[in-house]
C-alpha cells in the first residue's frame, strides 16, 4: 500500500476541476466537514461546481459566496443555531446557485445506493412533498414526476418513491485520524461519511492527526474508512475550523457568526477571502491566522478525553514532514 500523504495545494490541484461533481463532509453544519479543503478550492478559484452536500456547512457557504457553486443537492441549507447560511442564501436568491432540495436522511440514502451499485433507492422520505414535486433542475414542470418517480412495491402493491443514487466524482472527507495509507478513524457521529467514502469515485481525506498504522491494528473496528477506498491524505490541523471536530476542538462561536456576516455581501466575501483564505499557505501559517491563543482555547474541549486512547500513535509535525518527503 502506498504512502498517500500530499499537501492541501496538491490535493485541490489534482482532485478538483471546473464543472466537477464534488461531495463533501457527510457532516452537519456545525460538524466535521472539510472546511480547509473548501478554503483551498476558493483560493485556486474552482468554479461551476455541482455540490453534493448532506448539509450546508461553512465550506459550502464560502464556496457559494465566492460564486463557485453552480448547483447543489442538499438536505439542509442552514447553519443550525447560527442561522441562515448567508453566502449560500445570497447565491440561491440571486439565481447564481441552483438548489435542489432533499432531506437529511435522503442524501445519505442516495449515497448508500450509489455505494451499493443500485441505480435507485426506494423511499418514503421526500415522498408526498414538494421535495418530490418541485425540481429546480426542471423548473417548468410542477408537479414533477421525474425527480422522485413513483415505483410500486411488488410485494404489497404500495406506491412509493424512487430516489436516484449518487456517485460523486470526488469527495473530500474530514476525519479525526488517518494513517499515511488512508485508513481512517472518525470520532463523533460519522453522519454519512461511511457511505460517501464508498459512493465517490475518488476520495481525499483531510485529517486532524496522522497516526501510525499500529493504531489501526489495535482498533480495527474503528477504521470505518479503510485504505483501499482512499486516494489521498492531507494533514491539516484545525481543518474544520470554525466548526468543531469531536475530541479535538470546539466550534469558534465568534468566528462562525463573523464569517457568516461577511459572506452576506460580495464585498464582505472579498474581505473574508483576503483575511482567511489567501493569507496562508502551510498548516503552520493557517494556525497563525487563527491565532495561537484562540487555537489553544478551542482545543480545550470537554470531548478531549475521547482522543486519549490514541495519543501514543499520533505523529509529530516533524515526523509528518519526513513522511511527506520534503513536499
Amino acid at each position: 500500500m502506498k504512502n498517500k500523504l500530499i499537501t492541501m495545494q496538491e490535493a485541490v490541484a489534482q482532485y478538483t476541476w471546473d464543472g466537477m461533481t464534488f461531495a463533501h463532509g457527510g457532516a452537519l453544519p456545525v460538524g466535521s466537514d472539510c472546511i480547509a479543503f473548501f478554503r483551498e478550492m476558493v483560493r485556486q478559484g474552482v468554479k461551476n461546481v455541482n455540490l453534493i452536500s448532506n448539509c450546508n456547512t461553512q465550506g459550502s457557504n464560502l464556496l457559494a459566496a465566492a460564486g463557485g457553486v453552480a448547483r447543489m443537492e442538499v438536505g439542509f441549507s442552514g447553519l443550525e443555531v447560527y442561522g441562515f447560511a448567508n453566502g449560500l442564501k445570497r447565491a440561491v436568491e440571486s439565481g447564481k446557485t441552483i438548489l435542489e432540495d432533499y432531506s437529511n436522511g435522503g442524501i445519505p440514502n442516495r449515497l448508500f445506493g450509489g455505494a451499493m451499485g443500485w441505480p435507485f433507492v426506494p423511499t418514503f422520505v421526500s415522498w408526498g412533498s414538494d421535495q418530490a414535486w418541485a425540481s429546480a433542475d426542471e423548473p417548468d414542470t410542477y408537479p414533477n414526476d421525474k425527480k422522485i418517480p413513483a415505483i410500486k412495491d411488488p410485494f404489497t402493491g404500495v406506491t412509493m418513491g424512487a430516489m436516484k443514487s449518487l456517485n460523486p466524482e470526488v469527495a473530500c472527507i474530514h476525519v479525526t485520524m488517518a494513517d499515511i495509507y488512508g485508513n481512517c478513524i472518525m470520532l463523533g457521529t460519522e453522519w454519512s461519511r461511511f457511505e460517501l467514502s464508498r459512493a465517490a469515485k475518488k476520495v481525499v481525506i483531510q485529517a486532524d492527526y496522522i497516526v501510525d498504522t499500529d493504531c489501526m491494528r489495535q482498533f480495527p473496528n474503528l477504521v470505518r474508512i479503510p485504505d483501499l477506498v482512499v486516494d489521498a491524505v492531507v494533514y491539516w490541523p484545525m481543518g474544520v475550523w470554525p466548526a468543531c471536530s469531536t475530541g479535538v476542538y470546539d466550534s469558534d462561536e465568534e468566528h462562525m457568526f463573523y464569517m457568516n456576516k461577511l459572506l452576506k455581501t460580495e464585498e464582505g466575501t472579498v474581505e473574508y477571502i483576503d483575511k482567511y483564505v489567501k493569507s496562508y499557505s502551510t498548516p503552520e501559517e493557517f494556525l497563525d491566522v487563527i491565532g495561537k491563543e484562540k487555537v489553544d482555547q478551542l482545543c480545550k474541549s470537554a470531548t478531549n478525553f475521547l482522543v486519549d486512547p490514541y495519543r501514543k500513535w499520533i505523529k509529530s509535525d516533524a515526523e509528518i514532514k519526513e513522511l511527506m518527503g520534503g513536499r
Partner: protein
Amino acid sequence: MDYSKNEMMAIATGREFSDGELAIFGVGLSMLAGFFAQRNHAPNMIAFTEGGVYGSTPVGGLPWGIEDNRISANATSFTNAIDALGMLVASGRVDNAVIGAAQIDKFGNVNTTGIWTEGTQPWKVGKYTLPKVRLNGSGGANEIAVGAKKYIIMAAHEKKRFAEKVDYISSPGYINGGDDRKKYGFPGGGPSAIVTNLGILRPDPVTKEFYLDSYFVFSSVEEIIENTGWDLKVSPNVKMIPEPTEKELENLRAVDETGSLRKK
C-alpha cells in the same frame, strides 16, 4: 406566577410527551421542551438526536447543532444518519418528536424551504420559480413527518405563518387532509398537535384539519383566530391550558440553564 410565553410554549410541548417514549429532538426550543419533559414527568423517555448521538445530555450549554461537541461529550454511542434518521425515524420506530415551522397550513404541512412572492408559489403557477426568501430546507424534519408515530409542530403564531396552504411542503402533515397520507404509504401517523405561543391546535380525527383545542391564560380564542390565516374552527370544548406548576417551571429552568426562554 412569573413566566414567559416561550416558557409556557415549551412546557405545553413537553406535556405532549409520555414516559417511556422513544423521542427525537432538534436543537434549540425543541431540545429544551424534550429535556424538560424527561426531567419533569418522563424519566424513562429515551431521546436521541438525528446526528446518531445516543445516551448524551448537553454539556456546557445548549448545543449549536446536533453534532456539536456540547452534545458529544458524554454519549454512549455514535453511529450515523442512516441509522438515526433512516432506521429509527423514517422507518416508523420513533414514538414522538418535535419539529419547527416557518410556515404551516391547516392540514399541518410544514414549510421550512422558502417563501415565495404571493402568486408565484410552485403549486399556484405550475412551475418552480426562485423563492423570495430562501430558508433552510427540511433537514431531518421530513423523516420525522414521514416516520414518527406522532409529532408536535412548534411555531410562532402569526397570520402570515399560518396559511391556508403553504408555499412549499417541506415536511408533509396530512397533505390535502382526510386519508391523504395513506396514498403515500407513510409509516408514521402525522402531526398530533401544533403548539404555538398562543395555544394548541389539534387535527380533526376525520378531516385532519387543525382546529383550536386550547389557549393560554394570556391569550384568547379571538386572538388566535385573528392570528391564523385560515378560517380556524374552534372546538366546542375549547379550554384554557393550565398554567405551569412550580415544579414544571423549576424543571424547565434547570434545563434552560442560560435562560434563553425567559428573555422574551
